[in-house]
């Protein structure tokens, strides 16, 4: 029988920065469309893997000297390349021991039925609005687990005000992937330490004022993630010159919903998308960099 210790050691050998194991019972009562047991009904636990994004990729954006490598390496490569290989290799070990392993990599382009939010990281998101459950007691597909909640249950970090998971050593500079399995493993306790002190730095730093007490407005975020703010170094002087709302938009004072955000996207083409439709991050993830600095100064990470 494989042990939790072996799984964690193997994950780190294969390049994961952190690995934690969460008890599936913590999902009891959750939204079925986010429930790992709706993917694997016999699931016993969920294994979480954290992949660190090099701090210097954020620093380069903060200093306005380079943006594209954050998206290309820190987002696209981790999720589309590295994570897929890591999950495959880990799942093979689990299957070889006779247990099921359901891989859960990010699903950035899809939104479950009824979820009207978007992912700022990709060129478009598609809501599966026509889906219906295939049998009584099942949720409408696609079931997409809540990655933030999973990371907390696996003991990998705490949810911050900016909607990101804060890891005790690396702050928000991490990405996550998971395996749902029926292999019985010794589970970690959910992360219960409060790392976010609600300082509001992320809220203040967001160029598009997309963060408030309730969380992140994903459509607002997506516009300024794409570089609508005047601080975008790739912006030309004549950008939106015919738009009566130009100043409001450039100052981050314009409020966007899904329709107005999508209408502006074609004009927000400052750098090419990477493979698989990842949009270059031109806000510099300020919500994360200020969070990281604050947590460092506060001695919390």
């Amino acid at each position, binding site marked *: 029988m494989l042990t939790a210790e072996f799984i964690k050691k193997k994950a780190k050998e294969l390049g994961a920065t952190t690995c934690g194991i969460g008890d599936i019972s913590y999902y009891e009562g959750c*939204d079925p*469309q*986010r429930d790992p047991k*709706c*993917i*694997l*009904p*016999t699931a016993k636990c969920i294994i979480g893997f954290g992949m660190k994004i090099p701090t210097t990729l954020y620093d380069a954006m903060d200093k306005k000297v380079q943006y594209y490598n954050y998206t290309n390496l820190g987002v696209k490569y981790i999720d*589309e*390349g590295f994570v*897929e*290989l890591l*999950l*495959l*290799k880990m*799942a*093979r070990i689990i*299957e070889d021991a*006779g*247990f*099921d*392993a*359901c*891989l*859960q*990599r990010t*699903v950035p*382009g*899809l939104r*479950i*039925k*009824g*979820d*009207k*939010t978007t992912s700022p990281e990709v060129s478009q998101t*598609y809501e*599966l609005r*026509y*889906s*219906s*459950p*295939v*049998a009584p007691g*099942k*949720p*409408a*597909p*696609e*079931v*997409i687990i809540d990655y933030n909640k999973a990371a907390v249950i696996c003991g990998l970090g705490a949810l911050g005000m900016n909607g990101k998971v804060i890891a005790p050593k690396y702050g928000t500079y991490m990405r996550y992937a998971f*395996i*749902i*399995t*029926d292999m019985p493993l010794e589970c970690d306790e959910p992360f219960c330490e409060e790392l976010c002190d609600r300082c509001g730095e992320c809220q203040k730093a967001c160029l598009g004022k997309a963060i408030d007490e309730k969380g992140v407005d994903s459509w607002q975020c997506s516009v300024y993630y794409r570089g609508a703010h005047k601080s975008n170094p790739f912006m030309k002087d004549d950008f939106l010159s015919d738009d009566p709302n130009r100043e409001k938009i450039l100052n981050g004072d314009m409020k966007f919903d899904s329709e107005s955000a999508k209408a502006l996207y074609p004009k927000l083409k400052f750098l090419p998308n990477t493979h*698989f439709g990842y949009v270059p991050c031109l806000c510099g993830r300020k919500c994360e960099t200020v969070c990281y600095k604050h947590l460092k100064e506060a001695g919390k990470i």
Partner: protein
Amino acid sequence: MRQEIIETALKCDADVVGFAPASRFDKDDAVFKLLPTAKTVIGLGFRVLRGEYRGVEEGTTYYQYTTMGVENLEETVMPFALLRISNLIEENGFEALPQRRNQLIMSEENETNPEVDYNDIFRGVKAENQIDFDKCAILCGLGEKGLSGVVLNDDYGPFLRYCFIITDAEFEPTPMYEPHLCDKCGECIKACPGKAIDENGKMDSWRCAVYYNGGNGSKNPFMPPDAFEDFENRLDIINGTAEFDSEEAKNILDNIYFYPPAKHYYRTSICGRACDRACYIHLEEKGVLKKGFLRKFRTGEDWKLSTKQFVTKKREKEWHFSGRT
């Protein structure tokens, strides 16, 4: 070098490795057009994890099969293994020509590949020689041919994907399978939501494409009740019983937009390879698969959606989302 190749392949996530001497191939096989001095074809099989089929089996998650079980294997894992092993062979003074499945090129004039958009395929391309992957897997001793044409392996049944290396190095051959897995039970035929496999196991690639992409309403939870509204035979299409040729198939495929493609050029499998899953379940029931799991893959009845909604064009019961809006 044989053992070194096997060890390298396993390190690169191959699950099975086999060696076919050139003598097993006809003289006019594409293998010899590609490398006239070929002495061996090395076959590598990579499992599609059972857990990647789980979401479709449950009818709850579809994205992970295509991204991880198709795209990741074909575009990342297999090419890496092919390059590593080809370089190993070349370093030993032999030629090594890696062969991955080119999904978008075919010599046939009027066939298709369900895993990709039919519009993207270049057909009738005869100058680009390609080996027959299923035949090569069998000649490499990696499995036997099942009724539906899929290669069946002792450990993984139909849940493997293959790639090959043609080389002028000679190796001790892997024995070929004495067929013993497929009992012609016909479960693959019954399971196909588009009746794309005939009683002799012949696959109609256009039917397969239509229903791989989700043409059958009883097996596609993403289909709206008014799907295929402009088609006179819409209910036949939705029931998987419509007769159509390749041109009509293209028209149907153009109207299947209920779930976006995964990535690269890969279409998302909505049937979830029902033929392969049914085969696997049958082999597991028979106890002939050497690689065992604690639990059976299927423990109850397969799900099936009512097609009444497509007659009335209304959902009998609408699902309400309880999360964020």
